[in-house]
Every structure is written in structure tokens, then in C-alpha cells.
């Protein structure tokens, strides 16, 4: 990736994405590695990681569910979806559920206002969601039978 970039620093987003895919999240070791590879200071890499909400700096469950809480989704009931998901996990947003299968994160915005309230599981966006659809989805995720379409 570094070799293909016009300057080493330009490869940082791809490197971070690759590291996240491999490790689930960007741990401190991955952060240092990305800094060394690109010649950026660790602070600069942390700046990027904390700026982009798709990059994660904390451990997450096997699946990450990002529930959109932007204005359109909020109007369509995103808060109910979030509450239901949190209740299912039994932990706060951003934490790993007791089963270790799921982490729920409120997220702005996944660009699916036409299908509000929307959410994203791993890399797949789904919507519109309602109580039943979410219950089904959560059950599939718990049972490890959910597959991206």
C-alpha cells in the first residue's frame, strides 16, 4: 500500500482499514505500526482514528451494529431502535455485549435517509428497521446465522 502511494502518508487510511479488518479494532500496537509504516507521528494517526467514526480504537464484538441517529432516522424512531438494541446487549453503547457477539454504536450518518431508520451491520446497510425486524436481526446475529446479502 505504501509503495503504491504517491507519498507514504497517503496510504494511512487504507492501512488503518486493513489493520482494523485483521484485528477487529485499531489497538495501540496497530497504531504504532501504522505510524512507523507511513512516517506519521502516532499522534497524527490517533487524530485520524478519532476523527473517522468507522475506525474503532476499542475492542468490539464479532459484529458491529451502527444505528444511524441523524435527523431523518431520529424522526423515524432511531431512538427506539437504539434503546431496543442496547437492552438486548445489556451493556452501554460501544461496549461488547455479554455474549461477545455484538457491539452497538450510534452513528451519524449512513446516508440512507430514504430508508430511515437505518442501521449498518458490519459493512452492510439495512433499513427501514422496526421492532420486529430488529428482533429478528439480533436473534440471527446471536445465533451466528446472519450473512451479509
Amino acid at each position: 500500500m505504501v509503495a503504491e502511494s504517491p507519498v507514504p502518508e497517503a496510504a494511512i487510511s487504507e492501512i488503518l482499514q486493513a489493520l482494523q479488518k485483521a484485528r477487529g479494532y485499531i489497538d495501540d500496537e496497530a497504531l504504532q505500526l501504522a505510524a512507523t509504516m507511513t512516517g506519521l507521528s502516532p499522534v497524527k494517526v490517533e487524530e485520524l482514528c478519532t476523527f473517522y467514526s468507522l475506525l474503532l480504537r476499542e475492542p468490539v464484538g464479532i459484529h458491529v451494529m451502527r444505528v444511524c441517529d441523524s435527523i431523518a432516522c431520529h424522526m423515524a424512531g432511531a431512538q427506539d431502535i437504539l434503546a431496543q438494541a442496547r437492552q438486548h446487549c445489556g451493556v452501554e453503547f460501544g461496549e461488547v455485549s455479554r455474549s461477545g457477539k455484538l457491539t452497538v454504536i450510534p452513528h451519524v450518518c449512513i446516508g440512507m435517509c430514504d430508508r430511515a431508520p437505518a442501521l449498518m451491520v458490519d459493512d452492510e446497510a439495512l433499513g427501514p428497521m422496526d421492532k420486529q425486524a430488529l428482533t429478528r436481526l439480533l436473534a440471527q446475529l446471536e445465533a451466528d446465522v446472519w450473512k451479509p446479502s
Partner: protein
Amino acid sequence: MKHVFFLDGQETPFIPGQNVLEAAIAAGQDRQIPYFCFHPALGSLGACRQCAVKMYPHDSKHPPRITMACLLPASDDLQLVTLEADVHTEHREIIELLMTNHPLDCPVCDEGGQCHLQDMTVQTGHSVRHYSGPKRTYRNQDLGPLVYQEMNRCITCYRCVRFYQDAALGEDFGVFGSRNRVSFGRLEDGPLESPFSGNLVEVCPTGVFTDKVFRHDYVRVWDLQQGPSVCPHCAVGCNTTPGARLGTLRRIRNRQNPEINGHFLCDRGRYAFPYVTAHSRPLQPRLKGETSRQEAVLRQLASRLEEGRSGFLGSPREDLQSNLGLFALADCLHAPFAAVTSSWAEALAQQCLALPQAPSLQEVAAADRIVVIGDLDSIAPMAGFAVRQALGRGARLTVLASSRTGLARKGDYRPLRPSALPDVVSRLADDPCLQGGRLPVLLATAETLGPAGLFALRKTLEKLPANARAGAFVNRPNLFGAAYFAADGHTERLQQALRQREIHHLLCLGADPLGEDWGAGTWRTLSPGLDGLALLDMVDSQTARAAEALLPVAAFPERAGLFVNYEGRIQAFAPVYRREAQVLHSAVHGSAFPEAAGGMKHPLGPPPPLFWLGRLAELLQVHEAWQQRLDFYLHFLCPTAPDPESPGVLLPDTLRARFAIAALPTTPTVESGQWELDIFRWYGGETLADTAEDLQSLAPLRGLRVHPDVQAEWATLQGPCGQLHLPVIPCEDMVQGVIAIDQEGFAELGLYPGDPVEVTWEQGS
């Protein structure tokens, strides 16, 4: 041609290239335009949206519109308005948004009274917060002993990160998060690494970053006595504003001088001041280690001087008048005088004075080809800051040093042994690193380069284009002023007189010949020949502890004086406050006077050195001759003394011309396979700064720095004046064959940077 635009009907002059806000601030009209993210040294960002002005177009087709003054280039006849209701509403509403999460803790905030946010809030008339929801809160970081963080007060103007990353090129501080969760700090808790971290306190427009040292002995800023002063911690001579209260110094802030330090100050300049309030500071005259009456000490000292077997030793650490006062007294008594403690340092001063006019830091910041020799950041950090500013403008930097210094990481680094420097410097004129530049500048740390290297630098400069400039730096504020009258083998003569028993008494001013000054090893070997040593100083040095007579002197913010900086710029400083020091006996009645009656306080604290020297001249009945000589020398060097508020006056070239004949000094030869010495310093290391506990808590370990290929834990160095046993600190960045030790080590060994040294490596302690 005069350029003007109109702000609320008033003519506002501007220089082409300025934006409207810059011009308005320069014209004193900033009360009409509130602002946050704009900073004169950091430029415009347009992030805070506070500096709105209404622009009326010249035609009738376009309606008037509100725009940001910091992003609007000033142009002739621009019609701008801030007094209309919609502009005022914009100002008030924007500040209300910025204040949404602000904790409004002004009564307990250190920034209160000097807070830009407070000023702007009052100025715009915002007084009622409409938002009643919960406020965003943060966990604060521990940023070390110098800067205190309180993130909740942040209004996200980004000034701190723009200063730290873009101006100071620091890498351990940044901005994290996005939207409502933006925070500024380090990756993890720990002291800020930049030698310029204290400027966060001044650039922050609110109380997010406050002065942690000032907190220890805090006072509201409106209660501070402040005045113009000059930093005494290195040869740059940054302008400062010390603040004092109840006779004690509380803090140092930057005082803007566009040609030197601009808007900033290094951490040594800001945090080294506690030498003034240190418990160890001598405040009472001492005779043979016992506190004594000043008249007794003066009479004893005068009787010593009357014997006619005294030598006089000045110091580049003391100001111009004091050194000249000492020189004048030596002259009156026909006694030998030296301004520096070793012949090597004298040659160094002579070569520094022989260099043509050095560039101001403003010129360094405008240079496009820069060569730095040695670790500039650790000697004169603000010179290093000017190099960083030049780098930000696209300058090409080459660093010649024996280790990868902070600046070497920002440019091309050429690892070199100190003994190789004179040779390399003499060939720099043809080097590609200086070719093709509009303004080439060479900056050296004088001690690393040595007298021979400085000679080579002068010769190289003659071969470079006429606009090429060079400057040499030391960490003493007044090398030029001290060395001007005593640069012709005077130190050697003084030492020779002591060796041959022509003199057996020494009167020193601010020097530490038995401690850590250059050549201290030689003085220590000569000290058995001394029957007595008298010292005028403000710090508790080894020489002060060994002195027969000690006369305490006022610290620099407590008196007036002149420093001559590395450019030959003569700058004046004024007394900022009066220290109250307790005296044991009433000077009038010779007996204790009740404290309750207020009689135990000497109203002025220790007097300046000139007072002591004048009293000595009186007792020796040479006062008139002394005064005449002092006035003559002062008039010769500085016919019109500058005002403390002025940017200073430059020593004319005609006065420096006599040093141009300074010959090539001899250099020691280093055989291949021999170890050679270089000096290790850090940015907080300097005699006065050594008593500043907070700053010194950041000091690196004392030891001997060497490339890690040496497998040893301890080493013993052997020099002509003694030996030194130090732990080995492996240092990846060191050049092989070079050993770096601190100045104290050099003083003990009796050696100088670039000298070969005998070393024995040892395992275990």
C-alpha cells in the same frame, strides 16, 4: 501610497497582503471586531465565525453581505460596517454558540482577568444562555509540570494545535475526535516534549491551558506588577514581561519584539525564573560562610583590594554595566581583569565578536537555505523556533551535529564528529545545501563549533553571497557585552598572575570558576594559591559556597541593566518590582529593630552589582575615577542607552571591526581511534535555570552518552584537571567515537568540546 479601507466610517490603514482583521488590530480598532481563532503569528482560519463584518459593495446590484474579517483581504476603499444590528446579533449569537459548553467557572479559573473569551463575551454583550441541556465534559490530561489542562473550557479555536504542530513542529500534541467531541492533548498523559510548550498558555484564548508553575503561587493578574525585561537565559535576549506581587516574582510572559521572539518564548525563558525566589538564593552578605553586616563585608573586601594583589573576573552571565563597573574598578586599581573563565571561552567570544552582523530571528525565519551546526534547540531554543518557522515556509535545512537533534529530524542530517566541523564548515560555500538560495543563513552553537570552527565559519561567509548571514549562540545573555573590553589574552594573564603569586585574591562577578564555568578545572588547581575569593552573585554556586566574602545582588527583574545579545543588539531592562528582604540588624542603630514596627525589612532587597562596586570604589577612595571610567566605557559601547520598551540598538560594525583580525585558534588533533568529547545539553539546562524545580523535573539523566555499540555500564574519563566517573547512557543517535557529557563534566576534566579524551569502560557500578 497610503492604503486605507473604511471600518464604521473610520479610515483604517493597511499594508497590501494584510486581511481586514489584521489591519484593524494593528490600527487599534479590534474592539469593533471580536475574534478567536485568528492569531497574528498563526494566521487566519475562519473556524470560529466570530469576526463578522458587513461589507457594502461599490455597486447597487449586489446587496451588502456579512463576511469574516480574517478571511477578507484588505483592499482600497472597502466599506465595512460592524455597528449595525445584524452584525451585532451575529457576534452575540456566535459567542453564545461557542459558550454552549463553557463551564463559566471564571471565579476559579487562572485565566480570569486575562481571558480573551471573557473580554469578547463582555464586548459582544452576550449575557443569557438559552441552552439548558447537559454540558459536554472531558477527562483532563496530566501534561507535565509546566502546563495545566482544563478541557471543559475549550471553544475549539484550534490555536493550540496550530501553534504546537504547525509553528513549533511538535509531534506529541494533537486534536482528537470530531464534531461535539473534539479534544486537544497528547496520546496519553505525560509531559509535553516541545521546548516551546509553555506558549500554549498564551495562545489559548481561554483557560484550557494555564501556567502550572504560576498556580503554585498564584495571584490575579490585575494585582501583578509588570514591566519590560529581557530574558537572561541565553544569547538571544527575548523580550519578556515578568509579573510580581508582594516582592516576589510569580511568572514570566512573552513581550512581543517582532525582530527577536515575536509572540513566543521558550520554556527555559518562561519557567526558569524560580532562581529569584529559590531558598538557596543568597540574600544576605556573608563573610567566611556566616551572615554578616554589609559594611563589615565591604570593609573586609576593601582592605583585601587595598593590598593590591587582587584579580577581577567578570561574567557573560552578568549585564553590561556590572561588567564594565568591575572592569573600571580593576582599571582604577591597575589589577588584572578577565571577562570569561578560560582562554578557550575567550577565543570563542573573540571569534563570535569577529563574525559580521548576525541575522535577527525575523530574518532567520525568512531564510530559505539554513545550515545549523550543533544542537541549537538546547542552547538557544528560540533560534531553533525561528528555523522551524523558516521550515514552515519551505526552507531547506541541513544539520551538522554529532547526534540526531530535534532539528536534525526536520531536515537533512549529516552526522559529524566535533573535530571534523571546522573542516566541513570551511567547505560549506561550495556545498549544494547552500546553493540556489535567496537568503542563506548559517547558525551555530558556539561551544560545539569551537573557536576554530567559528573562524572557519567567518572565512566561509566571505566566500558566500553578500546577503548570506551567520550567527553563533551561547547560553549566556551577555557574551558580547562582557567580552568586548577583555578579549586579548586577559584570562591567561589573570591565571598566570595567580600561578606566579602576583595576586592571591580574586573578586568575581556572577562567575562560577570553582563550579561549572568553562575552565573550572584549571581554577580548581589554582585555588590553593588563593588566600581569599569574593563573589557578587544571585545564585548559590560552588564558588559562592567557597567564597570568603559574598555580596548578594539583585536578580535581573529587580534592577535595570543592559544585555548585548548574539546580534550585538543592546537591549535594556527595567526593574519590575522591589524585593523585600529581611535584614538581621538595623543599618542605622546596629541593633535588631522590632519586626512588628516594620523595621526588619530592607526595602530594596539585595542591591545591583553596581551599588556594591560603587561602595567599594568609595571605600578605596577611587570613586570619581571609577565613575568616570565607567561612564566612558558605557558611552563608548552604547552612546545612547536604549529604552526598555524599544527594540534595542545594534552595536555598530566599527566597534566590532577590531575583532576581524582575530587569528586562527589552534585546535587539538584527534587521532583515528581516539574518543572525542562533545557537549550534551538540554533546553532547560543553564546556571540560573538549574534551581527551577518544575523545569528540572524534566531534565534528562546525567551520564555519558555514547553510541550503543559500546558494551559498558560505567566509564571513567581522564582529563588534565581530574577524572570523571559516569554511568553510560546508550544513545542510538550518537556518532560512533564521540562521547557527549554536560558542561559540569567538561569543567571537572578541564577539557573542551572536540578534545580527545582517555576513557576506561567498566561493567557494573
